[in-house]
């Protein structure tokens, strides 16, 4: 089959199969799948608040998806999105608390987001360095770094920064908070959707430009496709491994703008709640394409929140299974159709 057709057919087929299987699962719980799907739709895209929730979730997933997709172009599998988000989120909160109150909003937001990106980026870079220097598989090192970051952040929170008898830090200064769409446009009322969605969309567009339009991206793709040939052409694979991991980490770090600056306004234990891992699924479904990734993140945002809305009728775990089945189907289909 043509390469281009595969790229369109595979994700769609995977989603279709996953929905079919979930329909069967719903039926085993004694519910009518059509009714459940209809309820899900009306309570998500059918409602103002539901749409806002999906936008909010999609925003985080675009960024954690990019954290996986960019290293993927250099044939690296970044499992460390979770740790990179945590590092970013804690840093964003920390900087947001420390900034003087009179800092103007644009500056405060920029400083907080940039430091969050730097934090995520350093965690990614560390995994890249371990790979280049010692040949440690990035899969292992990023998983280990997840634990390390989690423990560090947990320690800092409980022993130094938590507001007494809570599991969160104090609030960040007013001007570092990213306004919600509700406050500015009056849409998606009461939902946590905020303007950091624009960051995510810009990040996805910029990633696409970087990968497909710049010399850096050209070299990265060459390293990913044929590392040896890249070496003969004078392209240093090591430099690009470090670069891709650093950029990936920065993307995950930026997800904290959505979580901390836009929504919670403080750092809280369990804030990331697995979005780093769902990012892997998001990237795989989009076959690591930065623009398709937005659609893929939207689907996962929908399934995540949609599952919650119908939790009273069927366990939301069914929709977690749908997510996982979609990914497995993608892997199976890409192998068999080729």
């Amino acid at each position, binding site marked *: 089959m043509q390469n281009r057709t595969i790229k369109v057919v595979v994700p769609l087929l995977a989603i279709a199969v996953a929905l079919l299987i979930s329909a069967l699962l719903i039926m085993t719980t004694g519910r009518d799948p059509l009714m459940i799907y209809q309820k899900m739709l009306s309570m998500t895209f059918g409602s103002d608040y539901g749409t806002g929730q999906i936008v909010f979730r999609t925003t985080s997933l675009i960024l954690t998806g990019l954290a996986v997709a960019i290293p993927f172009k250099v044939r690296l599998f970044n499992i460390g999105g979770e740790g990179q988000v945590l590092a970013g989120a804690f840093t964003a909160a920390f900087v947001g608390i420390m900034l003087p109150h009179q800092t103007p909003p644009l500056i405060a937001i920029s400083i907080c987001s940039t430091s969050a990106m730097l934090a995520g980026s350093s965690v990614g870079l560390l995994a890249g360095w371990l790979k280049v220097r010692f040949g440690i598989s990035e899969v292992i090192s990023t998983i280990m770094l997840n634990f390390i970051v989690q423990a560090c952040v947990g320690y800092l929170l409980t022993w130094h920064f938590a507001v007494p008898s809570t599991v969160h830090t104090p609030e960040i200064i007013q001007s570092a908070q990213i306004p919600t769409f509700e406050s500015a446009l009056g849409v998606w009322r009461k939902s946590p959707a905020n303007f950091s969605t624009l960051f995510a969309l810009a990040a996805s567009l910029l990633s696409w430009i970087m990968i497909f339009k710049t010399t850096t991206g*050209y070299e990265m793709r060459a390293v990913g496709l044929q590392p040896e040939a890249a070496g003969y052409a004078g392209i*240093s694979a090591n430099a690009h491994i470090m670069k891709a991991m650093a950029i990936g980490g920065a993307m995950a770090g930026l997800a904290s703008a959505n979580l901390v600056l836009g929504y919670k306004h403080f750092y809280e234990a369990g804030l990331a709640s697995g979005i780093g891992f769902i990012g892997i699924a998001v990237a795989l479904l989009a076959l690591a394409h930065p623009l398709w990734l937005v659609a893929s993140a939207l689907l996962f945002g929908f399934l995540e929140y949609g599952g919650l809305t119908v939790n009273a009728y069927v366990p939301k775990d069914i929709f977690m299974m749908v997510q996982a089945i979609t990914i497995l189907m993608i892997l199976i289909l890409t192998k068999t159709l080729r």
Partner: protein
Amino acid sequence: MNDVAVRLSGISKKFGEFWANRDISLDIQAGSIHAIVGENGAGKSTLTRIIYGISVPTSGTISIRGKNIRFSAPRQAIDEGIGMVHQHFMLIPELSVTENIILGAEHCSLFAPLKKKEASLKIKSIAENHELAFDPDVLVSELSVGEEQRVEILKLLYRNADILILDEPTAVLTPSETEQLFKTLKSLQQEEKTIILITHKLDEVLSVSDTVSVMRRGKIVATKTTTSVTKSDLANLMVGRNVLLKVDNPPETPGKSILQVSHVSLTDPKKRSRLNDLSFEVNEGEIYGIAGVEGNGQRELLSLLWGMAEPLHITNGTVTVEGASILGRNPAEIASSGVSHIPEDRLKHAVISNFSISENIIFGRHREHKFLKFAGFDTTAVNNYAKSMIDLYDVRCDLQNNPSLASLSGGNQQKIVLAREIDRPGLKLLILAQPTRGVDIGAIEMIHKKIIETRDNGVAILLISAELEEIISLSSRIGCLYKGTIRHEFTMEEVRKGRTSEQDFEKEIGMFIT
């Protein structure tokens, strides 16, 4: 003695557009040692993989001891008594010799106790019969490479294989281990076992085999009894004379020296010598041809010249381009000083087959300012450049749609590589490794013309080729590479004279490369 153990008739194997084996018919006599020689990529490995059932031939039939067979898995080949020792051993280091040998042939049901004692006794007796003495209870990880190979051979004997295929068995052995191996092979032959030996070392062929088949470009070009051939006969058959069209080669006017390699010695990580006091020079406006049988240091020399010598170790000598040392510099730095390199393995090293034609035509030259605009590429400039190169080199492709390079034929791919490397701004030195390998005859002619044209523009050219005729028809001077050193150098006058009686000249070169 006169039974046929393996008969191949019309065996062909095609990978995409490439014929790895083409119409091979061959009889291997039972109880003989049959050597198959040929350059890398000649199709030897594919052929053995077909006999062993790992690959299924595109067409043709195999018969074993007169019985027609169609293998689809090695298991079936093993059942027919065929065994193979791979170039890379298939042993589990954490298990003992006995455990490794009986693996896959344990002869007991799932939870029954393993009859290791029995097996170990049987192995000992087989080993003693063939002077393969060693302790069957030690772990494989404690064995030397030569001993590991003996374990592999024992593994086959334990399974009662009587047709043994050995793929480059001596590549990893020391001379004394090689001698020992040959003793073993001779003793196996006494027992009426048939041995198929894949190698490119001609000395070994002559000392151990009964019959020898020479492969080139996927075909068997000759099968002879070993006693009737000499080493230089084999070398000539192996390196081949396939270029049908003669390129017009006007007299050259060499200028000052560009590349100087002097007294270079190089060892591999296992401290074996790969280049040994190698010295030669390449001047402006000349083509220096390096003739030699593969494995005599060509690969090492190329990686040295392209800044990729790691993990090889340079023990002595200097390499300079226009007086400046290039040792320790990386490919990007070497390239930017006006050196182009066309590697021998095009698909692996010279192009990205999933990239489009225009992306490939700037590959490795993508840092040149004329292609750049802001942080990205100047698409118009790149496309115009691609268009002009494609016209100039007559590449047959559909540039409008800019398809991936993989969709082009080998010849057209090579023309793209050539265009890119020859057109490098400020080119002083062009390094060519097997520039016409896997290329159709029409493209060969065009590539040869461009090489001569480049020479006449004053570029120094180093040509490394396995095709003797290519070397003779293009080179200004010829160095004969043997065991990592230039054993003899033919001057310009000698080469010009040699070109007039090519057959004799080839024989003469053959003397120096074997």
